C-alpha cells in the first residue's frame, strides 16, 4: 500500500472516531438543554455530566488530529480548503470555543445557568451543521479559482439541496447516535428513569436518520453522479449499514442489550462512512485535489506514519485506562465514586 493511501485511511478512521465521540457529546448537550426546558433535568443531567466531564477534551483532540493530519499528509488541501473555508471555518471555531469553554465555566465553575445550557445545546447542533460545509464542498462545484484567488460560491452552496440534506443528516445523526449511547450508559448505571427518557429520544430519532441518509444519497446522485456510481458499486457496505440500523432499532424497541445496540449503530455509521469515503476516491476535493497528486513528499509521509504508530502505542493503553476508570467502572457510572 502506498503511503498516501495509508495516510488517508488513518485520517478517515480518525474522522470516523470524531464522528462518534463528538456526536455523543454534541447530542448530549442538546438533550441536556431539552431536558432542562421540559423540567426533566433532574432525570438525565447528572448522568450526562458524569460521562462528559472526564472526556470532553479528548473529544476535541480527535478533531485537532484530523485537521492537523490532513494538512500534514496533503498540504494542497490547506491551500484550497483553507482559502475557501475562512468564513464557515471561523464560525465553526467560534462555536467550538464557546461550547468548550462554557462547558468548563459551568461545570467546574459557577452554578447552573440557563444561558450556558442553552448555548451548550444550540452549539451542539450548529457545529455539525457548519462543519458539514467542508463535506459538501469536497463534492466539487462550489469553489472557483481566478488569478490565484480561491473563493467559495456562497449562493450556490446555500441553494444546493445536497448541502441542506447533508446538514440535516449531520444533525439527525448526532441526536440518534447520542441518544443510543446515553441509553447504554443509563442502562449500565441502572438508572431507570433516565433510561426511559433517553431510550425514548433514541427511538424518536431513528427513523429520521435513515430518511435523511436516503435523501442525501439521492441528491448526491444528481450533484456528483461519479461519486454516486462508485458508492453503488459498494452496495454491500451500504447494505450492511442498513442491516445494522435495523438490528439497533429492534434492540432499542425491545429495550434490551443496549450495549449491542450502540455497537450496531457504530457499525451502521462505519459502513456508511467508509462506503461514502471509498466512493470519493481518488479525490480529496473533487476534481482539484486527488490523493496521489496532493500528497506530501514520500519521506514526510513515512515519517508521519512512523510518528502515528509511535503515538498509538502511547495512546491506546492510556485510552483503555481512561475507559476502564470511567466508562466500564460500574461504581463510577452509578455515581458511587
Amino acid at each position, binding site marked *: 500500500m502506498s503511503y498516501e493511501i495509508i495516510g488517508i485511511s488513518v485520517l478517515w478512521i480518525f474522522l470516523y472516531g470524531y464522528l462518534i465521540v463528538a456526536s455523543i457529546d454534541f447530542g448530549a448537550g442538546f438533550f441536556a438543554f431539552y431536558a432542562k426546558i421540559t423540567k426533566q433535568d433532574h432525570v438525565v443531567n447528572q448522568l450526562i455530566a458524569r460521562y462528559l466531564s472526564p472526556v470532553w477534551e479528548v473529544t476535541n483532540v480527535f478533531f485537532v488530529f484530523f485537521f492537523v493530519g490532513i494538512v500534514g499528509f496533503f*498540504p494542497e488541501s490547506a491551500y484550497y480548503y483553507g482559502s475557501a473555508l475562512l468564513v464557515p471555518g471561523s464560525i465553526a471555531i467560534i462555536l467550538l470555543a464557546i461550547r468548550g*469553554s462554557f462547558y468548563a465555566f459551568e461545570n467546574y*465553575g459557577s452554578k447552573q445557568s440557563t444561558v450556558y445550557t442553552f448555548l451548550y445545546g444550540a452549539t451542539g447542533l450548529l457545529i455539525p451543521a457548519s462543519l458539514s460545509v467542508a463535506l459538501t464542498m469536497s463534492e466539487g462545484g462550489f469553489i472557483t479559482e481566478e488569478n490565484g484567488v480561491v473563493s467559495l460560491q456562497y449562493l450556490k452552496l446555500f441553494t444546493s439541496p445536497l448541502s441542506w440534506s447533508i446538514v440535516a443528516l449531520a444533525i439527525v445523526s448526532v441526536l440518534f447516535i447520542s441518544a443510543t449511547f446515553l441509553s447504554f450508559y443509563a442502562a449500565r448505571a441502572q438508572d431507570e428513569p433516565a433510561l426511559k427518557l433517553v431510550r425514548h429520544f433514541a427511538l424518536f430519532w431513528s427513523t429520521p436518520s435513515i430518511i435523511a441518509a436516503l435523501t442525501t444519497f439521492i441528491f448526491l446522485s444528481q450533484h456528483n453522479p461519479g461519486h454516486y456510481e462508485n458508492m453503488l458499486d459498494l452496495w454491500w457496505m451500504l447494505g450492511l449499514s442498513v442491516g445494522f440500523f435495523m438490528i439497533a432499532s429492534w434492540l432499542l424497541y425491545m429495550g434490551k442489550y443496549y450495549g449491542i445496540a450502540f455497537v450496531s449503530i457504530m457499525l451502521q455509521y462505519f459502513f456508511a462512512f467508509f462506503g461514502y469515503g471509498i466512493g470519493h476516491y481518488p479525490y480529496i476535493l473533487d476534481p482539484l485535489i486527488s490523493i496521489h497528486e496532493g500528497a506530501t513528499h514520500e519521506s514526510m509521509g513515512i515519517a508521519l506514519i512512523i510518528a502515528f504508530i509511535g503515538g498509538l502505542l502511547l495512546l491506546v493503553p492510556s485510552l483503555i485506562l481512561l475507559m476502564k476508570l470511567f466508562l466500564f467502572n460500574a461504581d463510577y457510572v452509578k455515581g458511587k465514586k
Partner: protein
Amino acid sequence: MELDTVLISRLLTAMTLGFHIIFATLGVGVPLMISAAEFIGIKRKDPHYRLLARRWTRGFIISVAVGVVTGTAIGLQLSLVWPNFMQMAGNVISLPLFMEVFAFFFEAIFLGIYLYTWDRFKNEYIHWLFSLPIIIGGGFSAVFITIVNAFMNTPDGFEVENGAFAAVNPIGAMLNPATPTKVFHVLSTAYLTCAAILAAITAFLILKKKATDYYKKALKLTLALTFVFGVLTVITGDTSAKFLAAHQPEKLAAAEWHFETEEGADLILFGWLNDAHETIGEIRIPKFLSFLAHGDFNAEVTGLEETPEEMWPPLWVHYMFDLMVTIGFVLPAIALLYFILKKMKNRQEHNKGMLSLIALSGPLALAAIEFGWIYAEEGRQPWIIRGYMTVEEAATSSPYIGLMFILFLALYILLGTLFVITLRKIFRDNPAEEELEKHYPSVKKGDES
C-alpha cells in the same frame, strides 16, 4: 486593498496567538507546580500542600479549557489565514505539528483521570503519578510547537527545486539551528511564569486576609520555584542571544540598535532613536553586547548594515527585548529578596512592601512572555519563513478577513471576561479555610501564627 488583507491577517494571528499563549503557558507550567505541591503533601503528610494542589487544579482546569479552544482556533487559523504558508511549509514541518497532537492527546487523557480520581486510590502516590503524564504532555506540546516556530526562523532540512521544497528530511527540519535554545527558553520561561503567577496570587491573598500557615507554605514553595526557574531563564535567554548572533544576526541587531558591525560592542538599554539612527538617552553598558552575543567582551557583533534596509525588522522591537530582559532579572531578584528577609533575625518577609512586590511579579512574568513573543515574531519580519517566503506572500486573499477579525476579537473579550469571573467565583464561594476543615477535619483550627 491587497495590503490591507495582509495587515488584518497579521493582526488576527497576533491577537489569537497573544491570547492563546497566556493559557498555553499556564498549561505547560502549572501542572509542575501542582505535582510538586501534591508530592510534598503526601511525603510530609501535610494537608496544607495537598489542599494547595487541589485548589490549583481547580483553577487550572478552567484555564485549560480556554487554552484548548484557543489552541484549536490557532491550529485551524494557520490554514485559514495562511493557506500559502501551510501549503509550502506543510511539506516540511508537519511532523512536529502532528506529534504535538499526540502530546495533547496524552495530556488530555491523563488530565481527565487526574481530575476525577482524587480520593479513589488507597495508595496516594498513584494519584500523584497521574500528574506526571500531564506535565510531560504539556511540556512536549510546547516543545513541538516551538520547533515549528524555530523552523520559521531558521528553515532547514530540505532543498529547493522550482520554487518548492524538495528532498525533505523531516528530522533535519525539526533539528534546525534555532530549536535547542528556543525550546529550552520557552520551557524555562513557562515554568518561571507559572511559579511567579501562583506566588503573586498567594501574596495578594495574604495582603487581603492574613498570613495563615497554608498561605505561608504556598508562598515559600512558589517563590523557591520562581528563583530556580528565574535563574534558569537568564541562562537560557543568554544562550538564545548567542544563537541569534550566530544564525539570525539581524534580529539581535534590531533589538540592540546595533547598526555597524564592530568589536567590543556596547549593550544599549532603552533610550530612543533620532532620524539619523543615533541613540539618545540610553543606558550604555560597555562591551556587554559582545559578551551577550559571543561570551567574549571583544568579539565582533554583526550590525544591521549588513542587511538591506528593506529587509530590516521594525526597530521598535528594541523595547520589547529590553522589557523582557529587565523583567528576567527582576523576577529572581524579588524571590531572592524574600529569602534574604526570611533568613534575617526579625523575619520581615511578610511585610506589605515585600508582598506587594511579589504580587506584581505574576503580571510582570506574563508581560515578559508577551514581550518575548512579540520580539521573536516581529524580529523575523518581513519573513514568515526566513529567506523563503514573506508574510505578504503567505496571507489569504479572502475579502472577509476583516469581519473575522472583529468576530474573534469579540470572542476573546468574552472568554477573557468569563474566565476571570469564573475563577473569582470558584475561589470566593469556597475559601481555603473552610475547605481545609471539610477535607481534613483533623487539622486544628487555630493554625495561624
